[in-house]
């Protein structure tokens, strides 16, 4: 340039807020995928969320129980709190770190398309920006429902939500899938839900919210697992947070509670699952452990292996080491821990990540991971990256290969 001064342009979004378009928030990831050359890989996101509470008025109309429906409608007209009948915890309001992470606070961007539910458009935008071929969608606040003091409310809200999402969201886009909520508080409702929904469009399996305080190996749940195995439907344990158990009650900051809570629940359930021989009883039931990160797995493998070998009489159903069963399970990648890359690599080796790990975004939550977090791992070869980002999920959920990929 003659002047030696280069002209430039301003970005259209100077500050990201709750009103910013999802595609602008995630624009850097879109750009990275093109730069790095994996934009044409199959990518499946096995854990993302929508905010069902923004549609709560619609959801409750699916409640079957007439009295609960009455209460739910009544609560809608009240102000000052979360929608009635849900099990929303006030502490969850800290998730966006005091407004520092706007997409966790609220997705308030304009949506003009009235032909589909607003959430369908929001999902499509995140899929476009993150380069996804499929997204497995979960609710948000309903993940707290497992500790609802009224099991019947858990059961009927699960039924209502499942009907609503199967009627309203899933039919609109072949790429949106879900693992439907099973209200373990009422086993009979779990059977109803499996029977009613397992053939519905977009349903690729079922999910237990891990924040609950009943042992998952209880005999009352065994017929549920048998039914899922017979129908070749995966079972996921979706971790969550609670600030109400005796351990997390001692933590008085969100960071502390969140760091422990999301792992502790799955530590307990996985321990019961393995030590009580569920993998031996249901060898063909695919189990997926979602949103506990990965750093807990080497701990689980070593701890359970050590104790099992000293006390095999307490776990007589086991025919191999606990870690051998863990290596046959599936895991979602988010929130991935990478502050010590040697430990991350050792974890991937220990769990056979190349065949057992599946990418998850957790979008739009505050600790989401974009696909680049997998692509950028320095110790993975290309095939392992492809497996984790998409190929493993295509196989586990028996999804059609995306056209041209």
């Amino acid at each position, binding site marked *: 340039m003659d002047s030696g001064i280069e*002209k430039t342009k301003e*970005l259209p979004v*100077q*500050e990201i807020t709750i009103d910013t378009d999802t595609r602008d*928030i995630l*624009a850097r*990831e879109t750009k990275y995928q093109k730069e790095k050359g994996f934009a044409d890989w199959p990518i499946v996101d096995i854990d993302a969320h929508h905010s069902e509470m923004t549609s709560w008025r619609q959801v409750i109309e699916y409640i079957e129980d007439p009295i609960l429906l009455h209460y739910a409608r009544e609560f809608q007209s009240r102000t000052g709190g979360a929608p009635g009948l849900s099990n929303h915890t006030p502490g969850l309001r800290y998730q966006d770190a005091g407004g*520092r992470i706007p997409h966790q606070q609220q997705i308030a961007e304009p949506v003009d398309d009235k032909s589909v539910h607003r959430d369908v458009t929001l999902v499509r935008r995140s899929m476009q920006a993150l380069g996804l071929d499929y997204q497995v969608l979960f609710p948000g606040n309903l993940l707290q429902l497992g500790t609802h003091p009224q099991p019947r409310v858990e059961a009927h809200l699960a039924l209502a939500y499942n009907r609503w999402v199967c009627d309203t969201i899933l039919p609109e886009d072949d790429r949106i899938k879900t693992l439907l909520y099973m209200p373990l508080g009422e086993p009979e409702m779990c059977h109803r839900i499996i029977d009613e929904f397992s053939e519905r469009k977009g349903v690729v399996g079922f999910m237990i919210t891990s924040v609950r305080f009943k042992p998952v190996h209880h005999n009352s749940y065994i017929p549920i697992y048998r039914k899922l195995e017979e129908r070749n439907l995966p079972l996921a344990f979706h971790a969550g947070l609670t600030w109400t158990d005796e351990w997390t009650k001692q933590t008085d900051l969100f960071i502390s509670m969140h760091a422990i809570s999301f792992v502790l629940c799955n530590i307990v359930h996985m321990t019961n699952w393995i030590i009580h021989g569920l993998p031996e009883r249901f060898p063909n039931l695919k189990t997926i452990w979602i949103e506990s990160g990965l750093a807990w797995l080497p701990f689980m493998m070593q701890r359970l292996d050590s104790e099992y070998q000293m006390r095999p009489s307490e776990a007589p159903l086991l025919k191999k080491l606990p870690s051998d069963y863990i290596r046959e399970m599936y895991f979602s990648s988010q929130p991935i821990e990478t502050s010590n890359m040697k430990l991350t690599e050792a974890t991937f080796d220990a769990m056979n990540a190349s065949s057992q790990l599946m990418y998850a975004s957790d979008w739009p939550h505050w600790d989401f*991971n974009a696909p680049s*977090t997998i692509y950028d791992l320095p110790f993975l070869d290309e095939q392992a990256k492809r497996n984790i980002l998409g190929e493993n999920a295509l196989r586990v959920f028996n999804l059609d290969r995306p056209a041209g990929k």
Partner: protein
Amino acid sequence: MVKVFVGAESDFEDRGRRVIEYNDTEIGVFFVDGEFFAYENKCVHQGGPICQGRILNRVVEVLADDRTSQGLTWDEEDVHIVCPWHGYEFNIKTGIHPGNKNARLRRFEVSVEGGEVYVDV
């Protein structure tokens, strides 16, 4: 190295910013306490758009002389830029994370000439 025009100095309010793009490089230029600071719009965590995040003062914990906690408050001097993707925070004048000195934003030099603001890219 080229000198890239950002904008007029008079257009920057205190704690104002201008996020620009030049040859595929995005740069945020901030005006804080009478000085300009510029960083690549790429968080060292997972590449998020750090310069498009909120500007907030650093949070500090107040300890009494006997080392008991007196709660949290805003630091009166240290200003942070917060990544909107995941919340990573950096001192807006140094580009360094408050608890990880190895987490540093890529910095650009800023100059003001004749009332116009430039970054060296």
